[in-house]
């Protein structure tokens, strides 16, 4: 059983794309001293070579991204409120009226809401676009705000984490859950060498992974990622993409990549042999760092092992602990097979 204490730490830490330093520091500390060679590259990716008992035949890269979606301060109004733009894809409905933290000293704020009592009837049904939303930090003037906030400061959904009856609800499970799977794997003794990258800037165009894959130059890559579970009330099975509680998710194709068929079959066989619950992603939806990795250099055979997560890119996602365990096991077993493939 995985101890999720470190997952909680990861989810409670802020790090939007381009501002992943706090997350990186946590991860580095967690994996130092476990036969790991660690370096931070120019972009801020954490690149790790883990020594196993034997040298691997093939170079296998496991990768997860450290960044989360959020917002960036683009302006400060004369009434002290902050203008924001999304960093990564955020549905306006999950942003309005939510608590946030701003800047490196985590100042508390709230996405301000015009009271419903003061709206015209046609306004009561529509949510304003994010670039019209403002964040209230309790100030009344631009001068006061500038004492605490700078242009370009990060704005994150307020950290939260809860775990009960096998259900984890938390901020930034995309993709701290993936980071967690890799950190816990790196702390184990492994039979073969593997490589891991904890990458930056996935949410704004798979940018960190591109550099990481170039530097590590792997034969195979496994992207470990949280993916949209659409198994919500009102959606039918054909549209649910994948379901929480039904095991690790393997994809044949999404918006970023067509996955390597041979590797996908190997992963499916591995799941079956090791009796690890898995599901095949039932939609060509979403995308992840595979998009950058599989076209790196002369090409990298790439697959994704994903964790079904409801409400990605919002204040709180929802995953099941059993899926987390299944994903961990499938990543580990598949990686070790690829290492001697």
């Amino acid at each position, binding site marked *: 059983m995985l101890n999720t204490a470190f997952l909680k730490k990861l989810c409670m830490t802020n790090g939007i794309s381009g501002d992943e330093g706090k997350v990186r520091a946590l991860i580095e500390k967690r994996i130092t001293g476990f036969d790991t060679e660690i370096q931070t590259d120019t972009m801020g990716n954490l690149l790790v070579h883990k020594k196993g008992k034997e040298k691997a035949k093939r170079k296998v890269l496991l990768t997860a991204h450290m960044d989360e979606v959020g917002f960036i301060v683009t302006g400060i109004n004369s009434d002290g409120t902050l203008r924001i733009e999304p960093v990564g894809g955020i*549905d306006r409905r999950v942003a309005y*009226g939510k608590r946030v933290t701003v800047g490196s000293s985590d100042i508390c704020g*709230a996405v301000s809401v*015009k009271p419903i009592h003061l709206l015209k009837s046609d306004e009561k*049904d529509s*949510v304003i676009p994010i670039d019209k939303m403002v964040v209230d930090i309790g100030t009344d003037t631009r001068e006061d705000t500038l004492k605490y906030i700078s242009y370009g400061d990060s704005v994150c959904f307020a950290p939260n984490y809860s775990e*009960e009856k096998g*259900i984890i609800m938390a901020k930034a499970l995309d993709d701290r859950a993936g980071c967690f799977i890799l950190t816990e794997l790196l702390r184990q003794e492994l039979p073969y060498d593997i490589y891991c990258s904890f990458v930056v800037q996935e949410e704004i165009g798979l940018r960190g992974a591109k550099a990481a894959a170039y530097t590590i130059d792997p034969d195979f890559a496994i992207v470990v990622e949280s993916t949209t579970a659409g198994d*919500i*009330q009102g959606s039918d099975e054909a549209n649910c993409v994948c379901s929480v509680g039904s095991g690790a998710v393997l994809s044949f194709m999404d918006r970023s990549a067509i996955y390597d068929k041979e590797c996908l079959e190997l992963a499916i066989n591995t799941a079956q042999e090791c009796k690890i619950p898995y599901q095949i992603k039932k939609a060509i939806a979403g995308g992840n760092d595979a998009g950058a990795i599989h076209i790196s250099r002369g090409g990298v055979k790439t697959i994704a092992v994903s964790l079904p997560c409801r409400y990605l890119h919002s204040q709180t996602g929802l995953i099941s602990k059993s899926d987390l365990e299944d994903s961990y096991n499938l990543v580990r077993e598949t990686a070790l097979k690829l290492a001697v493939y």
Partner: protein
Amino acid sequence: MKNILLKLCSAESISGVEHSACFAAENVLKSYAKTQYDINGSLIVEFGNLDSKYSIMLDAHIDQIGLIVTYIDENGFVKVSPCGGIDRRVLQGDRFIILGKKPVKAIFSSTPPHLSNGNEEKAVDCDNMWLDTGLRGEELKKLVSPGDRAVFLNEPSELLNNRITSKAIDNRAGAAAVLYCGDLLKNKDLSCKVIISLSVREEVNMLGARAASYSFYPNEAIAVDVSFAKQNGVPSEKCGIMDEGPMIGISPVLNSEVTDKLILAAQVKKMKYQYEVMGGATGTNADVISATRGGIRTGLVSIPIRSMHTGVEIVSLNDIAAAGELLAEYITERSITLC
């Protein structure tokens, strides 16, 4: 006062199920007055000169808006309806706590982008509101039943400049001001009786204030509630200003003598205050209290807040303290005049 507000805001006390915040308030009040609950669950205390025939009621509603469970499906999704005037635009993706047999955390379900068909500006409609607990049918049904309430999970948190963001500031801010006033008056030798009514169900039909003002039939009453503070995108003429002191209500439904004396009390106290002028009903308990039995002379004091009826309401602690001081000054002055 800050601690009292934080305790009141942490309580989950939604229309029809208000005992949690009442209990927090009772812990404060019982140190100087005998507490009682009326038939609807409103918390009422009397203090000052209990033998006096003249009584002044301070009313603050103790309920908050939220959701009510109407149905539970096999996959663990909980259907809810609004309980009070909740703002449907802010619900999706927010965290709630269902007040079941045990508290159960839930996320207000939102449609993933690949299924929203470009309708992302549309607020969720009333007949398609679901909470997601992640739990499955039987396990969930052991904990949650139709009729259970759910409230925003947001605990109080401090902003800059002595301001607080939380769920339920409407109307724990008013309740905190009333409790602060009680604290200022508790050791004073008053000639009249003071009644504090923390009344239930304002957000649905003002039941608590209707019944308590009937039963206790005070000579005067002041409703203490929240109103709109100036904030981004809202016309200034519809709002008070945060940190500019309590808003004194002026309206045809309010008694002008009480209103004038409130203004006078603010002037005597040399404190900041602002006017809130309304052409008719105030939308507060003052509307029903003033028309109780043969009529009750009623005034209104409001505390300006931002982002009303969401999980991120914002209030200034200075305004709550000032409202409490204004009420205490008013009652002290009345007590002297009535002697």
